[in-house]
């Protein structure tokens, strides 16, 4: 148990430290890198809790995809570092307020009731430790929370289509590569062998 406790405190300390780093770093790129470190430490905490599926999904989705795009955008932006820092004290109370609110909500959920544990369906309770948490999550998501789950998928699909529609431009003047046409082209269509009479040429 001691090793688990030590690992927990290391991951937790790194996560909190990286969180502070995100808002304290001068360079926005460093902020994003700290954010990635925070995601990573959270994934470590998930593994310690035995939720290895969530940990891997956190790394794949947030670190592997979301943060890459984030880093991409921040790198491309032309940022004035001094102006970026100037609003820090003004926004700090707002951020701190939201943080305190979220913390209070978490405390309420875990302290007031047995709600989180009671929400687990019987499948997980029945299987106990023998059932892997990947399967347990699947059984919950596709039975009890199927409507919420599919609804979330639908909303994401709509958002994706919306983003494509918003950014799609038709540019008729553009010359595109048409692979089927290239492949369908035969020698007879493009080559013609002619005998050219001397002095006359062909038109």
């Amino acid at each position: 148990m001691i090793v688990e406790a030590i690992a927990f405190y290391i991951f937790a300390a790194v996560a909190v430290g990286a969180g502070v780093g995100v808002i304290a770093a001068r360079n926005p790129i460093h902020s994003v890198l700290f954010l990635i470190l925070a995601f990573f430490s959270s994934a470590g905490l998930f593994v310690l809790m035995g939720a290895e599926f969530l940990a891997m999904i956190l790394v794949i989705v947030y670190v592997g995809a979301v943060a890459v795009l984030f880093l991409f955008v921040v790198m491309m932006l032309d940022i004035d570092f001094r102006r970026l820092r100037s609003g820090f004290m003004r926004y700090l109370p707002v951020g701190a307020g939201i943080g305190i609110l979220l913390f209070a909500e978490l405390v309420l959920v875990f302290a007031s009731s047995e709600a989180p544990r009671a929400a687990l369906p019987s499948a997980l309770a029945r299987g106990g430790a023998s059932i892997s948490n990947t399967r347990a999550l699947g059984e919950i998501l596709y039975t009890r929370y199927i409507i919420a789950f599919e609804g979330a998928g639908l909303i994401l699909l709509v958002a994706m289509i919306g983003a494509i529609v918003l950014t799609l431009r038709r540019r008729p003047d553009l010359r595109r590569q048409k692979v089927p046409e290239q492949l369908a082209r035969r020698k007879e269509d493009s080559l013609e062998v002619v005998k050219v009479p001397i002095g006359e040429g062909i038109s």
Partner: protein
Amino acid sequence: MANFWASYAWPTVLTAAEVLAVIVPLLVAIAYLTYAERKVLAAMQLRKGPNVVGPFGLLQPFADGLKLFIKETVIPSGANRVVFILAPVLTFTLSLIAWAVIPFAQGVVIANINVGLLYLFAISSLGVYGIIIAGWASNSRYAFLGALRSAAQMVSYEVAAGFVLVTVLLCAGSLNLSKIVLAQRHIWFAVPLLPMFVVFYISGLAETNRTPFDLPEGESELVAGYFVEYSAMAFALFYLGEYGNILLVSAMSSVLFLGGWLPPFPVAPFTWVPGPLWFAFKVAVLAFGFLWVRATFPRFRYDQLMRLGWKVFLPLSLGWLVLTAGVLLVLGWLPAH
């Protein structure tokens, strides 16, 4: 105290020994893959390749390593020092830690975790960071352009590779790599899922930034791409990381599609060869494919690269996933729990 020794210290020592037993042969394999690449390319171009250092030039990788080791590490004055050094270290580390879940034989694996497939996918999706932060920290136009290309390319091909992994997962019914190999006892997944195997292998070429997808390096337009500012050991780490990733993609392909340590047929002459040798042989054949492709194909144009990833591989893998799910469901072949 005895309890401490038995429950913590001894397992730690054991794990460290296991890690060394994987890493040391792996590093030797990476070193000789660089040698093999030069020899294979030379043979395909009717040259001799390295043949001076040692018999048949076999000591060439060590000579190269020594040369890079004693060279001076130059850090450009405009570079972001910490991130600049972090990038090659990250690339090399990521190419090694994925091997923790690769099974070499029945039960011969460092970490036999439940979500091995997701772990591999997570690690390979992190590979892009080494390149993108190298390009940014170098504070150089060429390096930055290389990094941007690489990020777009790796993210694009990962989507198709992800669907391929889901297809394999459907057929195997487990995320555990050992169980995936054992699910191929009767038939290797490369047979029913041949198009997926091809998609995965080509996506592997794109994710390791190898020819014909080596636009991030593109020496004819970007000098050397994202590592143009790197020298000495920092460069060596990128270089070794690239070859480590080639071996990793080959190992992943052989575990997911070619039955890992399993012999092609479970009958007498094939079963005499021990499992790890089969595994090594499959990895070697697939890695040779990487070198062969490099000697054969010219570089893709950037729009062709994106077209192949998004308009060919993505619909193909998505369609094959739905087809596989349908066939498994209709014929009742879904793996039982």
